[in-house]
């Protein structure tokens, strides 16, 4: 049951990461010179979203 | 095992029980000598070694300025590793590490492709021992490079990023040390293992399920088996992509870790 719960919990971060990087690719394709500004932002967003997945993973072991 | 069996047996409501694939299916002992046990992945490893050495020696023997056909194909792989991975990730003095990166790439690639090779169909990289062995080489290499470049204490000092409040240094150092010494090799090995294991497991699910459906009495199930085998075939093609990609990622991360250790300042 925990396993299935964790599997469901990964859906959210997966969608978030996909959205973040699609937005990054779109922006860089439109404005390549803005890459230096956009990439750290995207990485921060990715870290936050991925942290949710890791938290779910940890809770899977905790609970 | 219980989960996959539960899932598949939930789908197939019959009297006779379907047993799905389990990690035990990857463990195929052949001869037991007591102190060592020869398993099928070990034989595949021998095959991989022979194949890799043959490819490398045949591709680079009589390496000439104007390449022959075989040398041309070999050069494509070599150039990909040399220019696409090693030079990008390590930097100017990448040539020292080329044998390591290239050998690892070829080894992991062939090990992965063994999952889709006819009559073998057993990836050694789906056994955790092989990714661990490959990671051990990378682990030794990048720590050796780091200690040699920065000195013993300098390497630990190098791990802590600049611009940090002094009170935070011990905590962050703990975190960085855990990342450098534990999590990086762990994720490197587990990524390769997990991808190969799960991919092969997926194919096994489709093929074993299709087989079960085919040999079932109900004719409707025989019809469904076509779909299952078709999905297995599609997954097989998809797996070949994943196998090449994972070999690339493994070599890329190995080069990246060496490049980080080789870097002057972060």
């Amino acid at each position, binding site marked *: 049951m925990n396993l299935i719960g964790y599997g469901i919990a990964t859906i959210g971060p997966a969608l978030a990461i996909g959205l973040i990087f699609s937005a990054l690719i779109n922006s860089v394709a439109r404005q390549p010179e803005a890459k230096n500004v956009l990439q750290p932002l995207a990485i921060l967003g990715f870290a936050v979203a991925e942290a949710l997945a890791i938290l779910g993973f940890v809770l899977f072991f905790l609970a | *095992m219980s989960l996959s069996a539960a899932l598949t047996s939930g789908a197939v409501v019959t009297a006779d029980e379907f047993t799905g694939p389990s990690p*035990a299916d990857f463990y195929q002992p052949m001869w037991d000598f007591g102190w*060592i046990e020869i*398993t099928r992945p070990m034989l595949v490893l021998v095959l991989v070694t022979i194949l890799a050495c043959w490819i490398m020696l045949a*591709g*680079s023997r009589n390496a000439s300025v104007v390449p022959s056909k075989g040398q041309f194909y070999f050069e494509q792989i070599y150039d990909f590793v040399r220019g696409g991975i090693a030079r990008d990730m390590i930097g100017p003095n990448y040539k020292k590490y080329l044998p390591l990166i290239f050998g690892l790439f070829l080894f992991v690639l062939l090990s992965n492709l063994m999952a889709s090779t006819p009559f073998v169909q057993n990836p050694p990289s789906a056994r955790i*021992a092989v990714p661990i*062995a490959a990671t051990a080489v990378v682990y030794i290499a990048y720590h050796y490079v780091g200690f040699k470049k920065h000195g013993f204490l300098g390497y630990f000092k190098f791990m802590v990023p600049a611009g940090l409040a002094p009170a935070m240094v011990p905590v962050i150092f703990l975190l960085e040390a855990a990342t450098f010494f534990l999590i990086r090799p762990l994720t490197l090995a587990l990524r390769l293992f997990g991808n190969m294991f799960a991919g092969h497991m997926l194919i096994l699910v489709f093929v074993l399920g299709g087989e079960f459906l085919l040999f079932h009495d109900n004719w409707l199930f025989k019809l469904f088996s076509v779909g299952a085998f078709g999905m297995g075939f599609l997954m097989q093609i998809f797996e070949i992509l994943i196998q090449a990609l994972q070999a690339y990622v493994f070599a890329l991360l190995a080069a990246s870790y060496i490049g980080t250790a080789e870097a002057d300042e972060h």
Partner: protein
Amino acid sequence: MLAHVTTLAGRLVASGGGEGGGGGNDGTGLPILPHTGELIFGIIAIGIILFVAWKKVVPAMEQMYAERTAAIEGGMKQAEEAQAAAAAAKEQYESQLAQARAEASQIRENARAEGAQIVAEMREQANAEAGRITENATKQIAAERQQASASLRSEVGRLSTDLASKIVGESLHDEVRSKGTVDRFLAELESGQIRPEKVGN
């Protein structure tokens, strides 16, 4: 705490639930633990591959790349030399062509000048010839006229003397006198001192 750790390690290594997941030597550990024989084989395999790559493959390939770079650079240098030679040949050819063209135009100019000179010479010659011929003719005509007038004068003189002597009946053929008379008369006639009368009635 130590008891916790040891029991955890023991669970990890020894008990995969007896499923044969693959850990340890006999494959009874968890699947994320390495099988001993496979680990040894894997390290040996990677060692062999890395050794071959390190000793044989990469040096050969790098040497080949260096040679290829040298060959390409040499080829470029050769191409540059060939281009320079071609440029020199073209320049030479063009200079030769220009020279030939200049020569031709000079020849043409010379020919034209020569032709003009020839024509001028010819014209001059013809003019001179024409002038000479005209002069000759004028001279001849003048001479003939002179001659004619002289012979006419002597004829007229003799005739008139004859006529006069026939009238007079006496030979008036005294040379000096008659000559002087007739000449004087003619000179007076020419100068218009006497007007010629009608000889008839």
